[in-house]
Each structure stands twice: as structure tokens, then as C-alpha cells.
């Protein structure tokens, strides 16, 4: 390091000597991320805090387009590795962990007591008994509903504990009679349908079974899987008919306009509902109804994470940054700006946002476990085949046997 500084100083003119010396004292920490504008601003503020506390570190954030990042990360991890990179928890990080592209950061977890404070995400960050990154945010999934649609169809509003499954199905008939789609979704991009499947399966068979299924340990033709689809078939006729041709935002419009009553979605959709004119008055949130009685309630909360690539050059400072990002203060600040939930159990959520409060309450009492989402729990190829199957089931429920056979064939090929 000192040698380098010397040659730099020698190499440059005297006029730039002061400036060069100043930057040379700072150690550069390169960070590649894929933030949208609001979270980007929040992260930049966090970085400013971090730099203020560590004046000798200069964090250089390179922000990518969200979709482009998924391709770019495969190139830059091998070709030009930064010191920090955004990614996702669960099986989504497995290809990089298995290819030796992410660094083991178990020591950061040990040294900072994160196994306790970030306990809810420990399982989804662990592969082979080691931790491979730091989770900093997640958001809940659940059922968002339009109270005005309930009124229009003359259906009694769900209570604080939501409704029972039988009641939900019964309500669906009433919505149908009133010409309202009981459940809406837009599966053009496939993933919204997986949210419905995840909840159907978590409620019918529980967390352990769902994890075994996404990990390829259970056959898709298993009777328990068929039981899940049998329950799903009960509400299938009440799902928006042309969901395969519309995006999730189009379906959100249906909910806003009162043409649909419920929407199984992630909390990020609240912003879209409110832009469409809904308020805390007519937008409701409830936990997905219990189907099989007595199963510990599991929830869905996709987690975003930061990792150290194996090719990182400034590992010490990268670990320092991870520890900072794991702290309650940093997570409170970032998630307040983004409207999501912090992982750190000592962090605070915005008490004025009923959806965040409900989500925090729901997740912190989910004794069954927290799933990541189908396309993060299952390997990418299986996710694709599976989500196509779910979409087809919602259009052609009579094709169920074909669909399950196809998924089973894919399972045998993918999990070797």
C-alpha cells in the first residue's frame, strides 16, 4: 500500500500532490447494487453515515438497472469483482455459493451476535452450515383487499384474525354473484402466481413440507401436493379470468377499481394501490387463511442481501460495512425510507404505516417459519417450470395430472 502511494506521488505533478495523498489514504470499497431510485437514495445516505464513521474508507457505489443486474452479476463476479454485491437469500444464492463466487462471512455473524439479532433470516442465509451474506430487508406477503368491494357485494368484512378458509371460499361465491373477481392476479410475468401456490402449500402442508418440496426432496406427484391443488381448485373459478395476459400492475388496477376483492401480493404493491387512489381507509390487509387446522403458521417474506464476492480486494472493510448494515440503526433507517421491514429484531418500524405494523407483527409471530418465495426457495430452472405449471393450473385446472407429471420430470432432471 505504501509503495503504491509513493509511486503515485512520484508519478504525478506536484500540484496534484495534496489531492493524491488525500485519496491515497482512503481505502476504496467497491459496491455493486441494483436499487430503484428510492432505495438508492436511502442506501446513499447510509453510505454517507458509514463514511462519516470511517473516514479512511471511500465507498464507491455502482448502481445497475434491476433486471440487467441479474445478468451483469454473472460477469462481474468472475471478471471484475467488487468488494460488495447485492443479491438474494435462499436458493437464489446457491449457484454463486457452490461455484465459490461468494465469500464465507460466518465470522461477521459470530463477531456481531447476528445469529441472535438477525435470527429470523439465519436459515435462509445458511448453506453448508456457513453464512454467505448479510440480510438487510424483507417484506411480507399476504392478502390485500378492497373494503369497498366487500361493501358492494354485501360481504361482511374480515375481522382482525382474517377469515377462515371455508368462509373465504363462501365469500368468493358472493363476490362472483356481484360480478367481482374474488381473487385477482396478473401472471404474465409468472411470479405472482407462485405467491398463491406458496401460501396454498404452506397452509395445507406446512413449512417443512414446502421446503422439502422446493428443495426437491418430495415428488410433485405426491398426494400431499395434490391436496394443495385440491384446495386451490376451490378458489380457481373465482380468480380473474384473463390473468395470464396481464401484468401484476394491471391486476392491481382491478383491485383499486373495485372489480376485484383480494390480491395475494407483496407489501411493495401498497405503493401502487395508493397511487391508484386507495387509502388506509379502504385498503385492507389480512393473513392468508388457515387451511389445515393446527399447522404452525408460516409466512412468505423475500429477503434482500449483500455479499462479499470471492474475488474482493478489500475484504476487511467489506466485512466492516456488512457489520454496519446488520446493525439495528442502519436497518431502521434504510427500511423506514423504503417502507419495508428490517431483519434486525432490535430495529424499529414506522408505527404510522398500518401495513408495515401488520407485516412486522405477522412475521415476528410466524412460528412455522419464513419462506423466501418460490423462485428463491427452488432452483431457478425448477422455479420457471413450476411457475408455468401454476399459471396453467389457474387456466386449465383439468390439466393438473399432466402439469404435476411435467414438474416431477423436471424435478428428477434438475436436482441430481
Amino acid at each position, binding site marked *: 500500500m505504501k509503495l503504491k502511494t509513493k509511486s503515485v506521488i512520484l508519478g504525478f505533478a506536484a500540484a496534484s500532490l495534496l489531492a493524491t495523498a488525500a485519496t491515497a489514504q482512503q481505502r476504496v470499497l467497491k459496491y455493486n447494487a441494483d436499487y430503484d431510485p428510492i432505495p438508492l437514495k436511502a442506501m446513499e445516505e447510509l453510505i454517507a453515515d458509514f463514511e462519516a464513521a470511517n473516514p479512511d474508507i471511500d465507498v464507491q457505489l455502482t448502481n445497475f438497472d434491476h433486471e440487467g443486474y441479474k445478468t451483469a452479476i454473472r460477469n462481474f463476479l468472475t471478471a471484475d469483482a467488487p468488494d460488495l454485491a447485492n443479491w438474494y437469500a435462499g436458493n437464489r444464492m446457491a449457484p454463486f455459493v457452490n461455484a465459490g463466487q461468494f465469500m464465507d462471512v460466518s465470522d461477521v455473524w459470530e463477531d456481531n451476535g447476528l445469529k441472535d439479532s438477525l435470527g429470523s433470516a439465519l436459515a435462509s442465509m445458511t448453506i453448508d452450515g456457513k453464512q454467505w451474506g448479510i440480510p438487510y430487508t424483507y417484506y411480507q406477503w399476504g392478502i390485500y383487499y378492497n373494503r369497498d368491494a366487500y361493501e358492494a357485494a354485501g360481504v361482511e368484512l374480515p375481522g382482525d384474525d382474517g377469515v377462515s378458509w371455508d368462509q373465504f371460499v363462501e365469500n368468493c361465491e358472493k363476490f362472483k354473484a356481484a360480478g367481482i373477481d374474488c381473487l385477482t392476479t396478473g401472471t404474465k410475468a409468472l411470479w405472482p402466481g407462485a405467491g398463491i401456490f406458496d401460501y396454498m402449500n404452506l397452509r395445507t402442508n406446512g413449512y417443512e413440507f414446502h421446503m422439502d418440496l422446493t428443495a426437491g426432496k418430495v415428488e410433485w406427484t405426491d398426494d400431499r401436493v395434490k391436496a394443495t391443488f385440491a384446495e386451490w381448485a376451490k378458489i380457481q373459478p373465482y380468480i380473474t379470468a384473463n390473468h*395470464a*395476459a*396481464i401484468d401484476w400492475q*394491471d391486476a392491481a388496477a382491478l383491485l383499486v377499481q373495485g372489480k376485484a376483492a383480494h390480491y395475494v401480493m407483496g407489501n411493495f404493491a401498497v405503493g401502487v394501490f395508493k397511487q391508484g387512489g386507495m387509502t388506509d381507509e379502504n385498503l385492507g390487509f389480512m393473513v392468508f387463511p388457515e387451511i389445515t387446522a393446527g399447522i404452525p403458521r408460516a409466512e412468505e417474506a423475500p429477503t434482500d442481501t449483500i455479499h462479499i464476492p470471492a474475488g474482493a480486494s478489500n475484504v476487511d472493510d467489506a466485512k466492516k460495512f456488512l457489520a454496519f448494515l446488520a446493525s439495528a440503526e442502519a436497518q431502521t433507517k434504510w427500511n423506514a425510507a423504503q417502507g419495508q421491514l428490517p431483519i434486525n429484531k432490535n430495529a424499529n418500524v414506522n408505527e404510522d404505516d398500518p401495513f408495515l405494523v401488520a407485516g412486522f407483527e405477522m412475521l415476528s409471530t410466524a412460528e412455522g417459519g419464513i419462506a423466501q418465495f418460490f423462485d428463491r426457495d427452488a432452483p431457478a*430452472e425448477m422455479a420457471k417450470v413450476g411457475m408455468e405449471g401454476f399459471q396453467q393450473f389457474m387456466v386449465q385446472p383439468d390439466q393438473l395430472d399432466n402439469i404435476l407429471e411435467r414438474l416431477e420430470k423436471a424435478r428428477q432432471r434438475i436436482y441430481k
Partner: protein
Amino acid sequence: MSGSATAVMPVVSAPRTSYWKRNQRKLAPWLFLAPGLLMFLIYVIWPIGNSIWLSFFDWDGLGEKTWLGLDNYAELMDDENFYISLKNNVIWLVLFMLAVPAGLFIAIFLNQTVTGIRIYKSLFFFPFVISQVVVGLIFSWFYAPNFGLLFKLIEWVTGTGIAFLADPDYVTYALVAAGLWPQIAYCMILYLTGLNNISPDQIEAARLDNASGWRMLWYVIIPQLRPATFIAIVVTVIGALRSFDIVSIMTDGGPFGSSRVLSFYMYEQALSEYGYRMGYGAAIAVVLFLIMMIFITGFIWKMVNDERSGG
């Protein structure tokens, strides 16, 4: 042919001239071709060989490649999605051919001297000028459930709207219809230029022989449009086989993969978010390449033949 005689001359008169001087005539064409050939080798031949080689491996783009031999192809033969894509490619090929007669019809219709005909011609040509992505977007709004024009129209007439892009039975036809719009314009412009070159004497002669209407079209006009027809068929076949952008923009291969074509399936397997099976994608690419080769060889064979008989 007379060139070789003059090239030999200096060799006889001055036996010590350089190699370059002696072979100038033979080497010059290769030198002129060299930049093009080099590019062709690097950017066409080498990638083709490379993807054929890749199709024998299992590779996720990151880790180690594992040799599979012909396993990728064996899996392809047993892959339902592959056959759906293949079937859709055939639908595209067959229905896309409608662009040729439709283009001819519009060209003949527009080939008249009325005030403002240039404006009509440009309006008809317009869809070819805009990007395929925009065409895809326009048509997906046209078909869109709840607010699409066609959806509303069908709803108004029959009582229930049809969401073409959500229906596995209709979706490919709906996509071909979108693809045909710019393709017809393309064929039309080819025929319009062809019609300009039709010899008036022959039409005059046919008139004197009492030909008119369909007989005139079939026996006098169309034979003279043969070069335009040939090009129109070539561009339409190629357009049908590389129908990637419309599929990607309008349906992303959905619903549940029923509107995939081979080129899109290859992209999905090799490069999309849930893909990264480079070897399998390469195997699909090889199959698509072989299908294209059938047509390309046919076209080249015909062109060479025409040149021989013509020259």
C-alpha cells in the same frame, strides 16, 4: 478470360519480376475479400462452431463444463416444450407466407395515379418503419383484456371478450397477426418497385390480345414480378424463423409457454433469468440452425441456378 493472357505476358518477357507482379491478378480478389472474410470467420463461422461444440456440454455459464455428448439432444427429443416451440415455428412459417399475396394485392391496389397516392403509399409502408417492439406493444394493447380495442369490440358483439394472449389455443395466431402487419408492408414495397419495372409493351400487347383482369395478372404481370416474389419469400421465411421480438414483448412465451418459438426457447434456456443452461440452449440453436439451413440452401441453390441459366 482475357485477363489471364495479359498476366502471363510479363512472365515471358521479364522472368525476374516479383511474385506479387506475377500473381497480382489472382491475389487481388482475395485481398479485397480478406476484410470481409475475416469478419465472417470471427463473427459467423467461429460462433457457429463454438455453439455446436457447446451443445455437447452441461454449463451454467459460471462453473465447470461437463461433457454430456448427445445427452442435450436426447433430452430435446423428449421435451414437450421443444415440440410446442417447433409447432409454433411451423405455424409462423405457414401463416407468415400470407404476407406475400397480401403485399402483392396492396401493391397492385396502390399502383395507380391518383392525387395523393404517395401519402397512401407511405401510410401503408409505415408499420415496417416502426420497430418490432413498438408493433408488439401496440398489438398487446389492442388485445389487452378489460381495455383493449379488439377485446371491447368482441365483448360488444358477442357479450364476452376473448383475451387472445391468455388463451393457449389462440395466442400464436394472435402473435402472427401482429407480425404480419409490418411484414405485409415490407412485401408491398418490394412489389411496388417491381411493378415500376414492368414493361408497358407487354401489357399493351396483352391488351391487344384481349387479356384483362385475372388473366392479365396471372399470365403477364406476375411472371414479370418473379424477382420481387423471390425476395419477398426469402425475407418472409427468414422473418418467420427469427420471430423473437414479438414473442418476447407480447407474451414472454406465455401463457405457460404455449407461444414459444425455437429462438425464444433458446434464449429462455440459455440467457434468461431462470435459464443459464448454456449447453441445452446451444442444442436448440443448432436445431434452429439446421432448419434455417434447409431454406437457405434452397435459396442459394436457386439463385446460383438462375445466374447460370441467365448468364
